[in-house]
């Protein structure tokens, strides 16, 4: 299989299970240092623990005995790195954009906090306030309000039924969960659940030598989460949300997909269907956005999750009286794809777009790491990304139709509509 990343790449797995991927690329002395923990809100399967993976991401900046947070921050400041982190359904990424010459200093800091995290209960409680603030700023967005309800309706048991921020009631009790936070760290922040991705002006042998030195002593101990299996959906679901502010009505429709498999042409074709049916060059876009101008925007995409996820269709409707009309056009569009394969030339255009779009997005080491992270989190290495792009290229119009026939059926879907309360 041809590697999709056009730079020299080496992958190694340490005896303790830590996978290390090094991408050597010319980058004017810059490097990206990503630590990808294969734990996200998917792992929040216990009662009242929604949002905890994200909260824990914040705690990772609260220091160790050797490098307390003020010392850690001072070192990061001194080397002028751009350091941050984020949490998704399936993984949590800690990333630094930095000068390659600072690699060993950064590795000393990062390996220390992943192995020796230590924070006081007071710091833990203070950080809970910052997480609440993040929720406050997000909840003013109508899309967030609808999405929270949509996934909560679509999933009855699986943790994909809550957003990565978690429910407000669970955020409110976070300050009381210090002991649980230590347990969370012991269970999930382990080498066999982590991938180190380093890209830029670096050489693999030098990186691996440092990794042996700084991560070799990290102890295994990963405890797999007891994630409940989502029961098969058998009937369409619907959720209507009233929004306190003023907004255009928003429609989101979520279809249940089978588990993602980069080698499964039909499953991969679901994402291509989404773009062909509702993307900027689709008939639905031309009709609803450009010609009739009844929606401001329409888009769709299929999730790349570890467990069975969703294909989501989104539209902002300009006229509240036209919500049902827009839902009808979406249904008609899906019916068209179920009844006949898409035009082969359009599919070929999309396949070309996916390839060029990916390549054009690899401008910096941080770009490479951020584009790879999601797929590294799914498969634990880069092979999944290469496989996905090979499958993209192999998808046929018949595969797209098959995907629509199998997955785009009413009993697999949840329809969400948000409108202003007044």
């Amino acid at each position, binding site marked *: 299989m041809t590697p999709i990343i056009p730079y020299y790449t080496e992958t190694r797995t340490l005896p303790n299970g830590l996978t290390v991927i090094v991408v050597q690329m010319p980058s004017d002395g810059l490097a990206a240092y990503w630590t990808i923990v294969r734990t996200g809100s998917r792992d929040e399967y216990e009662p009242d623990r929604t949002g905890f993976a994200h909260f824990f991401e914040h705690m990772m900046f609260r220091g160790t005995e050797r490098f307390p947070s003020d010392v850690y921050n001072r070192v990061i*400041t001194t080397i*002028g790195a751009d350091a941050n982190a984020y949490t998704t359904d399936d993984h949590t990424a800690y990333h630094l954009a930095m000068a390659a*010459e600072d690699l060993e200093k950064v590795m000393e800091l990062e390996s220390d906090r992943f192995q020796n995290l230590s924070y006081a209960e007071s710091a833990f409680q203070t950080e809970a306030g*910052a997480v609440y*603030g993040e929720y406050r700023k997000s909840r*003013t967005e109508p899309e967030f309000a609808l999405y929270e309800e949509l996934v909560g309706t679509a999933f009855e048991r699986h943790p994909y039924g809550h957003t990565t921020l978690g429910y407000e009631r669970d955020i409110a009790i976070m300050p009381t969960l210090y002991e649980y936070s230590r347990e969370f760290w012991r269970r999930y922040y382990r080498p066999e659940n982590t991938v180190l991705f380093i890209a830029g002006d670096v050489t693999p042998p030098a990186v691996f030598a440092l990794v042996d030195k700084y991560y070799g002593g990290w102890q295994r101990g990963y405890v797999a989460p007891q994630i409940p299996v989502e029961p098969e959906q058998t009937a369409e679901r619907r959720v209507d949300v009233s929004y306190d502010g003023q907004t255009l009505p928003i429609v989101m429709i979520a279809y249940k997909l089978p588990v993602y498999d980069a080698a499964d042409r039909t499953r991969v074709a679901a994402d291509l269907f989404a773009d062909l049916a509702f993307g900027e060059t689709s008939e639905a876009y031309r009709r609803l956005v450009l010609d009739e101008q009844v929606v401001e925007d329409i888009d769709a995409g299929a999730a790349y999750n570890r467990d069975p996820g969703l294909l989501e269709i989104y539209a902002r409707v300009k006229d509240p009286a036209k919500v049902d009309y827009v839902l009808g056009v979406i249904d008609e569009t899906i019916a068209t794809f179920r009844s006949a394969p898409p035009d082969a030339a359009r599919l070929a255009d999309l396949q070309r777009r996916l390839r*060029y779009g990916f390549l054009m997005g690899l401008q910096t080491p941080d770009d490479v790491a951020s584009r790879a992270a999601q797929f590294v989190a799914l498969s634990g290495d880069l092979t999944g990304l290469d496989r996905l792009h090979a499958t993209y290229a192999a998808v046929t119009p018949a595969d797209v139709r098959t995907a629509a026939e199998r997955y785009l059926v009413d009993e697999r879907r949840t329809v969400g509509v948000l409108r202003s309360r007044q």
Partner: protein
Amino acid sequence: MSRGVRIVATALAVLGTACTPPSPPPAVTEREEIPVVLLNVPADPTISFSLQFAVGSQNDPPGKEGLAYLTGDMLADAATEARSLDEILAALYPLAADYDIRVDLERSTLTGRVHRDNLDAYLELFTDAFLKPAFDEDDFERIRSDAINAIENTLRYSSDEELGKAGLHEAVFRGTRYAHLSWGTVAGLRSITLDDVRTFYRQHYTRANALLGVGGGFDQALVDRLAAAVKQLPAGARAAPPSIEPQPIDGRSVVLIDKPNADASISFGFPLDVRRGERDFYALWIANSWLGEHRNQSSHLFNVIRELRGLNYGDYSYIEEFPEGGERNMPPVNVPRRIQLFEVWIRTLPNEQAPFALRAALRELQLLVDEGMTAEEFELTRTFLKKYMLHFAETTDARLGYAIDDRFYGLDDEGHLARFRRMMDELTLEDVNAAMKRHWHYDNLKIAIVTGEAAQMRALLARGEPTPITYPTPKPAAILEEDRIIEAWPLNLAEERMTTVPVAETFEH
């Protein structure tokens, strides 16, 4: 050189790095008819385009606020004479390329990027966008409707933080052509006709106003083709921009944006007459980075309000325009201004904690201006910036954007990023502390607060009484001791200097 265009080989100094200085790509300017900024990076498989026009929302005729924005979008998001918009989208689709325009207060910049494999297919689409806009009536209605929705729904109701920042900007620049949003106002947008757009385009999208930029792995033939296209624009004449003289701020005043059920989002600041290139600008950058580096844990405000007290998600400060602050980490390009806004951004927090957070931020600003940075803080911050700035322009298109902006600021020879780096070595602690005293102040500023409790907040702020906060969990004695000082920090806010605006009336006119 082809067509006798004289190439003046003015190498734009490009930032070097502390570690491995990159070989500075030659950037040259053509000075005949069409100024061109070239940033040749042969190893880059893509080509970046930039065509900037000296026109922005400051040129909106009174009553037609939003005209520059709509005109720009009618170029970048609408049909051309050769193709309908859906045909354009279909043509761009396999190229994974597009073009976009940023209409800011002073400049409108059309940018695009394409893989060199796809250059020929792309070039005609890009040049048609600015040479042959169709000014289609349906496109116009769609774009205008989207712009009105962006104010009436999205800005007013979807992001309190952006609303607060926009409210501050409007308050500081009220009475000038900087005051309204670059999108315009609701009333202005409603009054604009397609004929207005056609006229505005003819008047401002001219050779006299144009600045072309090309970056990446291009050759001279491409530059010639682009320059030839730009030369098809009418000659025009560059008009002097409108005078921007914000009213002097005497004391502190507050705009409360009354939004039912909202938490509090606060911004405060004042106009700043210091620009890129000036020595004091870089001195202020150091001070500002220490006070409130954007989305960085090195920010002192972040440390005081979030890290130690957990009141919100972040707290930052700015000496240059920084749009989309919630989404981007590094400074943007193509938003040059003659007058900047010094701005403190306190992210959303509970209403009952808002007066305390405001006091904490005002106090930190005052302490910094009065007492200055310490030698240790100064050294740490400039050490940080010397490397952190490497991330400002990691890509060809970002570097091209900086080079384009250098023309606005008259930094053709050295360039902002190179000067930035030099200044980090040259400036002294005394320079920084003196610059703050010259340009920053804490008694005369404007404050914008989005809140669901406007009446109570207004009364509380006017009374000036202490506004203590409580924590859900124990705090160290040192924090509580400092809290006693912060909660009673003088606000100096008089009732008659406060205005309350219902959210539904913001940015209407």
